């Protein structure tokens, strides 16, 4: 079984949920609707012809200022067939919520926590949605494109004193 056959089966089963199929340099991306994401993922994992039994990565992209703003990517791998497939779901800025897939691939637990930590995308039904990399009391989500890029202006000879006066030096 090959990737086009898998796509065909998914299309036949979830015709209205598959928005787009993109092929680029031998990599196939399945763009799906958020409502059918979990069912499609379960179908792909349990497909007897080509079971995608490994979630090799789960990541997000911020396309700001485009709309819809966010996309969550699920990089699937089929160990028995040596095939790869990417499932993509777009999310709007006002409602960055996506259902969790921890019930399908338990490895998604920490991946989803990382995406939540850095992008602020919430995963509905996640058993333990806390920050994973940043400190617990952190404010904001730094991989969003509207997050400030630098924390301190670059010091040159003409503005060195001005920046130095603002620096919070430690005291004993």
């Amino acid at each position, binding site marked *: 079984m090959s990737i086009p056959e898998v796509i065909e089966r998914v299309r036949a089963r979830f015709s209205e949920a598959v928005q787009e199929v993109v092929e680029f340099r031998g990599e196939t991306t399945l763009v799906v609707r958020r409502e059918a994401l979990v069912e499609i993922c379960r179908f792909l994992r349990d497909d007897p012809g080509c079971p995608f039994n490994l979630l090799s990565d789960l990541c997000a992209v911020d396309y700001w200022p485009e709309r819809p703003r966010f996309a969550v990517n699920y990089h699937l791998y089929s160990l028995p067939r040596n095939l790869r497939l990417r499932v993509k779901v777009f999310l709007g800025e006002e409602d960055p919520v996506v259902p969790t897939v921890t019930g399908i691939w338990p490895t998604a637990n920490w991946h989803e926590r990382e995406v939540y930590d850095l992008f602020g995308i919430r995963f509905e039904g996640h058993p333990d949605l806390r920050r994973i990399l940043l400190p617990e009391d952190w404010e904001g989500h730094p991989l969003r494109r509207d997050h400030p890029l*630098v*924390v301190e202006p670059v010091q040159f000879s003409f503005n060195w004193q001005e920046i130095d006066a603002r620096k919070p*030096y*430690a005291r004993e």
Partner: protein
Amino acid sequence: MGAVSEPLKAYGASAPGQKSGEIGVALTTLEEALEWVSSWARTRAMWPLLFGLACCAIEMMATQASHYDLSRFGMEIMRASPRQADLMIVAGRVSRKMAPVVRRLYDQMTEPKWVIAMGDCASTGGVFNNYAIVQGVDEIIPVDVYVSGCPPRPEGLIDGIVRLHEKIRRGNRSR
């Protein structure tokens, strides 16, 4: 009689005020001598904290290894416990999540204690001018010596340590 008193006067025995003054001078010089001896001893037996944060730690390990041999400067063993260390070499970039840990380790070290900021990242943040990295470890703990380089070669770190030794022998502290 005059012949007897002349040598006593020469030793200051016949003038009580002058005598006590001389003892005061003697005590001051003793304190200075003790200070000199203790600072000399501190430079000859420093106990660095076994603490590496990033790629600078690799150079720090190379400095301890046989080729550069940090034990020539009296610091061949790194202590894994801050209670037993008096020198913290901040080797690498300090992330904002690591910052409270660094400060806590510094607070746990015994007095007197010194800090070397090794490399550009520990000194200023280096190339990592972003949300995750502290822009210079001197925002968290007071630093005695900054060593530039990315990462500094072992000679650079040894130079920083020798400069710290000079600073300790001068007796002035940063805080």
